[in-house]
């Protein structure tokens, strides 16, 4: 009986942590990107959508970030359609069309997406445009 209660308390604690984490990410995002659209799904997932322009002369890209506490942030470019080379490593694009923005360890759950993923997304878009112009990926990696 006591073990059952302990387990229920632990799970409740974990769920609370996840909810707090999601709440934290969203509040940070709202701070920096007040005009973005948010959709919260359950306790542990949300979707963020906004237009991002990496430079004054760049195009505006509609970005979707799907965040789940189990899988972390996944970034999609909804519009315009990306030009995708056969060798996806040229533009650091995953097979599920999410952007590869960091190597393992560079992003952790306690980091604010607003201060990491989004700036890195903007960089990705800039380097993508320059890749289209030059055939080279100049962002390192």
């Amino acid at each position, binding site marked *: 009986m006591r073990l059952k209660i302990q387990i229920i308390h632990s799970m409740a604690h974990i769920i609370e942590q996840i909810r707090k984490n999601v709440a934290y990410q969203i509040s940070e995002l709202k701070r920096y990107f007040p005009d973005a659209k948010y959709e919260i799904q359950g306790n542990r997932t949300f979707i963020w959508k906004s237009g991002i322009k990496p430079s004054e002369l760049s195009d505006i890209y509609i970005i979707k970030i799907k965040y789940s506490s189990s899988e972390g942030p996944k970034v999609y470019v909804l519009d315009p359609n990306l030009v995708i080379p056969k060798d996806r490593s040229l533009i650091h694009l995953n097979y599920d069309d999410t952007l590869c923005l*960091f190597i393992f360890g560079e992003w952790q759950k306690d980091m604010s997406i607003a201060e990491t993923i989004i*700036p890195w*997304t903007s960089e990705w878009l800039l380097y993508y445009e320059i890749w289209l112009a030059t055939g080279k990926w100049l962002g390192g*990696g």
Partner: protein
Amino acid sequence: MEQRQQFNQILRHIAESLDIPISKYELAKKRYTAVGKWLEDGYYVGMSSIPEIYVQGSFRLGTVVRPITEEDEYDIDLVCQLNISKQNLSPIRLKKIIGDRLKSNKDYARMMDKEGRRCWTLNYAEDSDGVRFHMDILPAIPDDDSWKHTLISKHGIPDQYAAYAIAITNKERINNSYDWLRSNPRGYADWFDNTKQPVYTQIETQEKLILIERHGDIYVSIEDVPNEIIKTPLQRVIQILKRHRDIWFQKNPENKPISMIITTLSALAYDNETELFLALINIIDKIEHYVDTGLIEKRIGQWWIPNPVDPLENFADKWNENPALPSAFFKWVEQLKYDFNNALKQKGLHKIAESLSPVIGQRSVADAFERLGTSYTENRKRGVLKTAVSTGVLSAGSGAIKNPDHTFHGPHN
């Protein structure tokens, strides 16, 4: 406003990719210095002082444009001025003694082209980058004091420019006779320098520091950096216009406007703009509206673009012999206006690159955007790359979010 700032940055990168590489420039300098020394050391009968050797043209003005292809060459113009008067020397004799001095060096003798109308030409062998130089050496003497006096008193040319007036030799095609022609490359260069001086003074130190950072293997201190490689927006505009011209007239080079016209009109139109894009647009605009600006004159039906330091010299004289030339010129100016305004309208750096590639050259544009990309990465590594709120616009310095360093990766499933 900020879009124009970024376009400025792009134009600057483009102009830099039109530059002669620094190592190549230093090689050119070495070569013309060596030729100069050889000429200085010569014995010329009747001369009591050593010749004055100086560079003219784009190397002197700081408007050299890299050749588009390896088949094209860099052009170095060297004046060899003997200090003797017209009374004591005939043009044929002047031409010959300089030619003889060059030929007495066995290397130069081997490199020498057949005699030109006004100069002797040395052809240098291809360098490791596949690009050649050729050097035109112009024999010259100071022009008559009476002519200089006329320039000053009758035509209002400042003393300092008139003082440099020279006579060069010209071999007539028809009967191979030689006569004197008037010229004043040093006076022109001084006039050009004075035009850009205010902005040059503003940017000199900062630009030299940038060059030291980039070329630490060649330049160690500010004193090492030669003044003539610091480019004001005026010089950058001239470079861009010359390259645009080279590409636009690739199919009919016989109609292309001479660099003297482009350089002179740009310098006259330049209004000390520090922003490259503004300078470019304003200069093109003033040339287009030449009737109002007076940059190009029509005198009794004759086209005139007078040399600012010799008002009797008409840079547009060939326009009056061949109406295809002015027609081609004004069509080109229209094209300039269209091309640069069109580029600015594009959304996306890749679209801007696409619109500029055919007019500036694919390699130069790619090179420029590569350096643009690298500059963002350098800023990120230095910790100064920032992201603006709401828009996500990246810049060095302004923006609430500092981009942490990271590594692009993938793909993975």
